[in-house]
């Protein structure tokens, strides 16, 4: 008990900016910022305070590990004898400050794909190894949140280095990993009372997630549903845009392109979406997924069946962004319930 108490700290809310300033000496701090009354994770400028009074960000911080546009290789100054490759600059370590447990879960989901014993994506690994995560508890889960369906919860500390709870006028700060504990060493010590306060806030948050879909049997259920006409019904409303895929913390399809400007060029990796019309378009012109229901089926099967078969985990973390932002209100929770009742 004493050991776990040692890693409990707290900080008054008005002292937070001082703490962040200290962190910025050695790390680039990426934190929530208020952009036109919605929140995005962006790099904090000098003396800027993170905007922590929010439910969740519009886009997930996935782009800091799997950037939307990433140079694979870049060259500059071609001569007839050499193609000089631009060497990567040494990366400054980063802290993602204020990341919600659902987004942290998504990283452990992506880890299984990008860093496993058969294959290592060095671009992802480099960003992952150089980033520390300061998780932030969700005192007020949204109506659309269902992280509890996925072995997580509004105050799950899994995958974080430090975990912060907002308890009104102070932040309760727990060191989870050794690296995290070191960074919060100098903060004020906490006590058993703080832990109790945290568990009270946690209980209230858990109680507010009233009807998360039960996904335990979904991967098995989906196995026999490929030819089922339910897909046409579910997807009739879908516009085929890419909002759900681009806001999703676990979607990871990408496309590689080459670009040239005069004597410099680069090979670049961009996000792709299974909803886009040229996704899986063959060079011959044949398009195996011509209709929207085939794309919707692909998306659901990929996240809830194929990924589970390959990596033993469902590729969804219950953040609910696809539900809040879909222009035609396609609700993945509804889809999961429909499937489980088939």
């Amino acid at each position, binding site marked *: 008990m004493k050991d776990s108490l040692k890693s409990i700290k707290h900080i008054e809310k008005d002292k937070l900016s001082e703490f962040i300033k200290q962190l910025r000496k050695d790390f680039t701090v990426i934190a929530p910022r208020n952009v036109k*009354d919605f*929140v995005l994770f962006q790099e904090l400028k000098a003396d800027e305070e993170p905007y922590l009074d*929010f439910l969740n960000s519009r886009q997930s911080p996935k782009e800091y590990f799997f950037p*939307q546009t990433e140079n694979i290789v870049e060259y500059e100054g071609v001569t007839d004898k050499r193609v000089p490759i631009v060497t990567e600059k040494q990366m400054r370590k980063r802290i993602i400050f204020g990341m919600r447990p659902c987004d942290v879960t998504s990283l452990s989901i992506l880890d299984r794909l990008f860093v496993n014993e058969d294959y290592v994506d060095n671009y992802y690994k480099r960003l992952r190894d150089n980033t520390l995560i300061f998780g932030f508890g969700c005192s007020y889960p*949204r109506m659309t949140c269902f992280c509890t369906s996925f072995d997580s919860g509004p105050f799950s500390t899994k995958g974080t280095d430090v975990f912060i709870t907002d308890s009104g006028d102070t932040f309760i700060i727990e060191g989870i990993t050794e690296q995290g504990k070191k960074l919060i060493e100098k903060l004020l010590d906490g006590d058993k009372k703080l832990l109790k306060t945290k568990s009270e806030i946690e209980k209230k948050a858990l109680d507010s997630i009233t009807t998360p879909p039960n996904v335990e049997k979904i991967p098995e259920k989906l196995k026999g549903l490929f030819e089922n006409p339910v897909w046409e019904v579910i997807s009739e*409303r879908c516009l085929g845009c890419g909002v759900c*895929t681009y806001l999703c913390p676990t979607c990871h399809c990408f496309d590689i392109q080459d670009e040239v400007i005069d004597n410099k060029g680069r090979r670049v990796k961009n996000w792709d979406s299974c909803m886009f019309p040229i996704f899986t378009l063959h060079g011959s012109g044949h398009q195996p997924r011509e209709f929207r229901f085939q794309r919707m089926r692909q998306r659901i099967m990929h996240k809830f069946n194929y990924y589970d078969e390959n990596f033993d985990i469902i590729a969804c973390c219950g953040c609910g962004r696809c539900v809040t932002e879909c*222009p035609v*209100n396609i609700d993945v929770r509804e889809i999961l319930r429909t499937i489980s009742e088939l």
Partner: protein
Amino acid sequence: MEKIEEKIREIAGKLLKDKKVKLIIGFEKGTLPLKARPTFVRKPEEVEKLIWNPFCENNLAVYIPFYRRYLDNGESIGVIAKGCDVRSLVLHIQENIAKREQIFIIGIPCEGILDRKRIEKEAFPGEITEASEKDDKILVKGNGFEKTLKKKDFLCEDCIVCSHRKPVVYDELVEGDVKETEAADRQNQIKEFESKEPDERWKIFTEEVSRCIRCYACRNACPACYCKECFVDCSKPQWLGTTVDSETDLQLFQIIRTFHLAGRCVNCGSCNRACPMDINISLLVNKLSVDAKRLFNYETGIDVNEKPVLNKYSEDDSNEGFFEEH
């Protein structure tokens, strides 16, 4: 609202019973408090789920190009369409996507759609968990707050200057009392922007589109964007890059997509509402509507027998801006 809903269900039920249409596209209740969502009914008993309220924000004409297989078979489709949706349907008929006889228009005089994002900002950083409307007010509830808002304060910008609230063409019109906005002046909306210096305008435009993540929600929500191959997907030639770190590619995407709507956009605002980064696309497309009126006295989607503005010419067209001898 209830009267309109009843009438919609009555008309829709009759159409399906008489087998006049294969499918009716309308709205049903969404799973979020401020949302109504598109729905598709094919049987008379299904019409009970059809609703109508000021949260019916999608332009249902966007689905017509998806039903080519019905239209090619000679089948008809019914659409529950508000003022702007009707004009989009007229555009589709003008551009030969569907024949007039194949689209059964159930016209709804629209008082304007509520700007869900602006209402949600009233609760920011919290969220709205319950919303209901009564007469000219909306009651929103969230975690620890409750507010009554006036509908007219939260109409979408495009609805405030809507020029055709009453459907211009219909097969059945659901009665409702709606006044056309007085001298709907879209010109005023762009006047402020036009009064700025070019460099400042470019700066505002660039800042607005710098948030774009190329998700193409605007394109897919737009009923006028139905090209089989969009210019962004063309690889021979590849007109613009697909990255988001190139400022010019983002500018180019927005400029070109919106310019493809020149004289075809009905200013329904679906693009604004679909955009996950809250980009003000109206800032761009409003100019196109204003120009179509100013240069060619043309309004999109009024007469099914008319041609789209760029598909015709007049020998008296202006030569504004063309090289002049000095």
